[in-house]
């Protein structure tokens, strides 16, 4: 008789196969785990991306898709700027600013670089400061503070209007157009305007006689008066020298006399230069005869 209990199937071998064992050890290697968890996904994604981007047509279509999507947002009417308002400027300056900015309107507010607009406006000579903002109803509001003319500068190429810091504002056709402003001349005169202001302040007692200031060798000032008189001021401390002269003038009324120049360059030894008739008269008083050939 055969066994009633069915023979059990042979038991499964619990030992791992050689490959299973090797694979388990490989999976337990930290470097391999890190590679499989991070390196491999990154590699696969990068590979897929590279294969997709390899074709020029696909790249272009992708680019077109991106730009059209961007345009759809930026070109919406609520973002469009249609108007530029310029405040605080004379009509001519406003036109000049408009021409300078050369904005293509209407333009999307998202693409508008307000900082660049401000810098462009401030690059104009006549503009001291510009405030640019997007106002209500998408109006580009540009508030401009103009430079105030303070000086007329005579140069070899013509007359130039300067503000009180010596910055150029505009050219000037005729001196008579701005007769109210003081005149300066000479190379580098625009760079020394603070000193010129101080000198004019000091020279207020004979204000009506002043014709202008001349910068000599970008170093010192000459104060030019009417009747072709000039006061040569020193490079150092010209205001004190001028005040000393004013004191002298108050006492002895020097400037009313027939002088061509008062030389104050050396403060210890002011020199007066007389006009030729006055010189002759002085010599006659002192009984000095000068040979005619030495006079020339």
């Amino acid at each position, binding site marked *: *008789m055969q*066994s009633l209990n069915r023979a059990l199937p042979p038991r499964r071998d619990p030992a791992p196969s*050689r490959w299973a064992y090797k694979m388990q050890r490989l999976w*337990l290697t930290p470097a391999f785990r890190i590679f499989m968890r991070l390196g491999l996904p990154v590699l696969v994604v990068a590979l897929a991306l590279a294969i997709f981007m390899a074709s020029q047509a696909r790249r272009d279509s992708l680019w077109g898709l991106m730009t059209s999507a961007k345009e759809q947002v930026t070109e919406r009417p609520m973002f469009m700027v249609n108007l530029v308002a310029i405040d605080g400027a004379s009509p001519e300056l406003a036109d000049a600013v408009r021409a300078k900015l050369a904005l293509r309107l209407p333009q999307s507010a998202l693409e508008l670089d307000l900082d660049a607009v401000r810098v462009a406006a401030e690059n104009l000579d006549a503009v001291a400061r510009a405030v640019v903002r997007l106002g209500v109803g998408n109006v580009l509001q540009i508030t401009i503070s103009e430079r105030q003319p303070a000086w007329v500068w005579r140069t070899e190429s013509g007359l130039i209007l300067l503000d009180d810091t010596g910055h150029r504002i505009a050219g000037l056709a005729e001196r008579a157009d701005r007769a109210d402003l003081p005149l300066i001349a000479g190379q580098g005169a625009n760079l020394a305007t603070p000193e010129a202001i101080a000198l004019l302040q000091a020279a207020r007692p004979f204000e009506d006689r002043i014709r202008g200031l001349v910068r000599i060798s970008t170093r010192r000032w000459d104060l030019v008066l009417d009747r072709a008189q000039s006061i040569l001021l020193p490079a150092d401390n010209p205001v004190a020298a001028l005040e000393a002269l004013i004191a002298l003038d108050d006492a002895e009324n020097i400037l009313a006399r027939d002088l061509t120049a008062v030389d104050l360059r050396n403060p210890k030894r002011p020199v007066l230069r007389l006009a030729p008739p006055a010189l002759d008269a002085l010599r006659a008083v002192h009984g000095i005869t000068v040979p005619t050939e030495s006079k020339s």
Partner: protein
Amino acid sequence: MTDLYQSQRAMRNLRKAALQRGMIAILDVGTSKIACLILRFDGLEDTSDGDGVGSMAGQSNFRVIGAATTRSRGVRFGEISAMNETERAIRTAVQAAQKMANVRVDHVIACFSGGEPRSYGLAGEIELHDALVHENDVSRVLAACNAPDIGEGREVIHAQPVNFALDHRSGLADPRDQSGNRLACDMHLLTVDAAVVQNLLYCIKRCDLDLAGIASSAYASGIAALVEDERELGAACIDMGGGSTGLSIFMKKHMIFSDSVRLGGDHVTSDIAQCLHVPFAVAERIKTKHGGVHATGMDDREMIEIGGDSGDWEKDRRQVSRTELIGIIRPRVEEILEQAAERLDAAGFSHLPSQQIVLTGGASQIPGLDGLASRILGQRVRMGRPLRVQGLPQAATGPSFASTVGLCLFAAHPQDEWWDFEIPAERYPARSIKRALKWFKDNW
């Protein structure tokens, strides 16, 4: 011998590398089971509190993070007899332990019980060049030991210096930097069959593992089962395994003798299988469930169903009383213990000051063994269980894991062996660059 010396040095370097990585596996290749533990070393232990025993008896610096046991296959008498089967069993154990620890281990320390270990006591003596013992003097005195004829096809697996003597002072643990004129040392040499070691090496290599150390399981179970004072005062450990029974005698914390009896628990099982005509697996189950060595009147009435699936009603309904079972088991256990006692007597164990004997190993779990053993081996017999180490699962704390746990301690606190010292310059070939370098190193 130089060849093995080099390979042992290489193993020592591998072990250092593994300890630096902080991960090492322990593999106990036994006849009845293969156990694999994975140890994680958390850093060097603080040894600032003198030379005494640290916290947890020095076991606090490692932790068992993976443990697996599998039924051994292809191993007989602690020796590999079917390489493929053993390789599969090792793979099973290592894979399960790795899965539990969730780390990969590359270095493994293995122990085995077979190979007919033989002990030799060696003595060497040298004159010191100057009156101070240097590092190279220690290696010189170890090299000066008279090498015994260990026989053809045998290899040294342990060569431990157990004692140093300086002039008339003996019992020095570390003679370095002491002054004296004559340095003598005693060395314990343990040799095993070279083919057994080669087989184990090859088997582990086929599992993609590097062998970082090798130990005799008798030595390992002695480390685990003997307590500190037993090892100091002298004791013998009898590790009753499945296929062989290992003996090791410890004195002054060093193993001074080791031997093995090629009998074990598997022989008890095969006796039962032969007498009762049952399969091996059934015999094993009956042995572990009903086994014993002392029969009482109660046991006459306790009938054990043997079972069977022959289809014959008479055969399948056989019963045997527990007394009969004990009558089968007892002679074999007595034989094992008598053989062990014979080996101990041959080693001169009776001359030792302490006659403590510790029984451990899987076969020592038979109820009533302590009474039988004390009748054969002497009065001072106790059952030993391995030390507790951190993280060891409850299932692996029994006496059958004594050598596994001992191997953990061996990995954490290796004993200095002969090959840990540098080769003395005289041993190098006469015209080698190494010799010149060595001379430079020693003299400047």
